């Protein structure tokens, strides 16, 4: 409980400092979240939902928090070169925990699209965000409450009715500091009726200092809205990422989520999808490639509140060396959610004796007219396939790569945007070869 008290003290001492630069909207939610966090504390190890991920330990490090909003000085030409070849993107940046304006945001977006700093928009146009901000994360666990207590900025994407944004919007979050640092950031995405967007989130950290980031994303998809969201984590071995994604889907909305973890330290991703409107579709998938002592925990909950919805889930893990993978996914079919079609698949490759996999695919079903299934496997590369390839002159290492590449490919193929798919194929291949475990475009990583 000690480090919980530490953060409670930090908040008590710096309450005014934290609140001062922030919009009223953030501060009101902050007070409520603080009370909840105080009561909950960090999830303990005997918490069934955090059974295999020790969160308390992650907060043991004495991280610096930028509560006074000191602007980080970065050289934009050095830092913001993360782009995807053959893809026209509009780039947005969050450096540490603040939204960062650059001249790179030159590409204009259609009218009716609001994108920018959460704090600024909450100040200038609070009525727009008031019905949404923290309305999903409010009922979240202590990590969500912690984030709401300390968050000061983030990104807003608001798309008005009927607008289809063709261009991919890319959000790059960068942790860049010369001390051990913690950043709490927030992403709020609202798509009104029949709006659609593609979003690419790249999570980077730049140095070998210890870092911890909490990221809460709230997504609201109104009737007929469509969102493709692709998240790529390429941080460092000394990074801790605690991310939670809350999605609220109305009638006929479509949500497609891919979460690719290529390089990380300790990661816990929570995905909570609420299907509140009929005929909504959700497709969530994840790929984890871990080695050394990396730890990746994906926790998902798809809550079918109404009938006639479809959900599809695929998570794949490749675990090398002493890495740990955790997958716990739950499909919750509520009593009135008849005619639900729900599928969950989890496949895992353990490459060494020391790699560990914990899998918990769960079904909780209260309606009878449903089609639900889940499957989970843990195994190794197929000996016969390896032998077959060797017979045909492919060296064993190459054959192994090919098989792993094919295994990972299934997740990447689910990304709807071709340029991102190509990019990820390339990154995954490089990751396997151990040549480069960072994205090439990011000059930060070149250092």
């Amino acid at each position, binding site marked *: 409980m000690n480090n919980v008290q530490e953060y409670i003290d930090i908040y008590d001492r710096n309450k005014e400092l934290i609140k001062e630069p922030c919009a009223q909207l953030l501060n009101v939610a902050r007070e409520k979240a603080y009370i909840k966090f105080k009561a909950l504390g960090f999830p303990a190890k005997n918490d*069934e939902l955090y059974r295999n991920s020790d969160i308390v330990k992650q907060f043991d490090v004495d991280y610096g928090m930028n509560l006074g909003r000191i602007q980080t000085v970065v050289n934009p030409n050095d830092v913001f070169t993360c782009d995807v070849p053959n893809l026209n993107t509009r780039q947005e940046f969050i450096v540490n925990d603040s939204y960062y304006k650059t001249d790179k945001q030159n590409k204009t977006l259609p009218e009716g699209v609001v994108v920018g700093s959460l704090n600024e928009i909450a100040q200038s146009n609070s009525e727009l965000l008031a019905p949404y901000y923290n309305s999903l994360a409010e009922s979240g666990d202590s990590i969500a409450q912690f984030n709401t207590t300390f968050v000061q900025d983030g990104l807003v994407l608001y798309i008005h009715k009927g607008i289809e944004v063709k261009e991919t919007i890319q959000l790059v979050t960068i942790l860049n500091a010369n001390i051990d640092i913690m950043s709490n950031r927030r992403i709020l995405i609202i798509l009104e009726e029949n709006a659609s967007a593609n979003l690419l989130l790249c999570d980077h950290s730049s140095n070998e200092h210890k870092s911890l980031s909490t990221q809460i994303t709230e997504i609201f998809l109104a009737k007929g809205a469509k969102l493709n969201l692709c998240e790529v984590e390429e941080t460092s071995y000394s990074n801790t990422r605690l991310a939670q994604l809350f999605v609220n889907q109305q009638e006929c909305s479509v949500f497609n989520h891919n979460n690719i973890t290529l390089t990380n330290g300790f990661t816990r991703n929570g995905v909570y999808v609420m299907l509140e409107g009929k005929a909504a579709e959700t497709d969530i998938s994840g790929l984890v490639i871990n080695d050394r002592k990396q730890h990746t925990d994906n926790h998902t909950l798809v809550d079918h509140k109404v009938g006639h919805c479809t959900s599809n889930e695929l998570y794949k893990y490749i675990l090398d060396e002493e890495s740990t993978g955790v997958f716990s996914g739950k499909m919750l079919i509520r*009593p009135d959610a*008849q005619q639900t079609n729900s599928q969950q698949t989890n496949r*895992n490759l*353990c*490459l*060494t*004796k*020391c*790699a*560990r*996999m*914990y*899998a*918990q*695919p*769960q*079904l*909780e*079903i*209260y*309606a*009878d*007219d*449903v*089609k*639900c*299934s*889940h*499957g*989970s*496997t*843990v*195994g*190794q590369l197929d000996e016969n396939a390896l032998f077959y390839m060797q017979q045909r002159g492919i060296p064993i290492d190459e054959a192994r790569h090919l098989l792993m590449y094919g295994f990972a490919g299934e997740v990447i193929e689910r990304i709807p945007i071709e340029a991102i798919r190509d990019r990820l194929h390339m990154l995954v291949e490089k990751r396997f070869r151990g040549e480069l475990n960072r994205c090439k475009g990011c000059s930060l990583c070149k250092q």
Partner: protein
Amino acid sequence: MKKRNNNILKKIANKAYEYGFVSNIKTEIIESGLNENIIKLISKKKNEPEWMLEFRMQAYKYWLTQEMPTWPHLNIPPIDYQSISYYADPLKKSKEKQNKEIDPELMKAFDKLGIPLEERLALTNTAVDAVMDSVSVKTTFKEELKEKGIIFCSMSEAIQEYPDLVRKYLGTVVNYRDNFFAALNSAVFSDGSFVYIPKGVRCPMELSTYFRINAANTGQFERTLIVADDNSYVSYLEGCTAPMRDENQLHAAIVEIIVLDNAEVKYSTVQNWYPGDAQGRGGVYNFVTKRGDCRGINSKLSWTQVETGSAITWKYPGCILRGDNSQGEFYSVALTNNFQQADTGTKMIHLGKNTRSTIISKGISAGKSQNSYRGLVRVSKNADNARNYSQCDSLLLGSKCGAHTFPYMDIHNNSAVIEHEATTSKISEDQLFYCNQRGIGTEEAIGLIVNGYAKEVLNKLPMEFAIEAQKLLSVSLEGSVG
């Protein structure tokens, strides 16, 4: 048509539980409550050696420090452990008379249950240990078994007559610290069966224990210990029933099985405790810890269970696959109706090399019941070439019930091959229509389909049990569809 079906089904449902009678047997029940004196009293009544009392006290002290776990997917009303009587002895009367004759009422009770205590029915080729409330009433075919060196007797007798064997194995598979109910059971357990199969002996008949709760306001806390020495084989059956009462009764048992080199144990259960009425009143809380330890190389343990009774079932028969090449199997049909709740499954702990386990679980939920499968497959670091296959299917009959699957897979070895799959569905309209077309009524068709669905598991039961289980399935189900 549907309405008419419902009426027929309702009629059958009302007569579903046929073991709900109460026998008028003079029973000695000790005062309710749980404290050190009660434990001393139980120990004294059973004339136990000092080490047994120590064993109980240790467990009791640990139990006091524990709280009832809240993780299962069950809604358990608070249990007042002080209002339960922990010892009820239906043999009191005969003991007073100083002869070994069993109360004719008691004989009648077991006859009514279809468990003849006289050995005249050798036809069934099954030796029975009959346990009512806290005491083993009689064990049949004891002498015949003794000729082969097989020990089959009640636990109390075993503690008196084979203390070394009991002391060597008791509590080595399920430690009193294992869980809340294991601690409680270790403190207050009253009777149960003890089986020892010596080296190289193949048990010539099925061994069976029949548990019956009769007295009101009591709990049943029995303990079964089975030891299969090298190269031996035994098939063991367990059955249970209880009277219909409006209050809930607690049954917290422990079953420990030790399987040594090349030995094989088959453990089958048909659990038919009183499930409560259609409004969810009454019924038995069945919180049981069952575990087998495959200590020897090439040992094999197979659990088969048909769970149709109990208001709340909470148990995970498990296998610790310690010996190299050992095998664990778990076959289960769990059926819940009305307001029944079940959170059941298995644990397969792979420790030795080349260990294999199979899990087949079929859940059927009807009425307003909740049926959960929860299973753990753990492959430890040194368990090379472990293999597991799990299949958990759920069938939903009715729109107000729930079927849930919570598998856990903890894999610490890269040579393991683990598969898990689960599906949930209802009986399809097509299947019913097909049967109807061929002149099979809806009700019968459902029975057919459910029996077919559960067949994979029922096939693993010994013959007599399989027939009983099949009947039980259709009886428990009827009235739930419509």
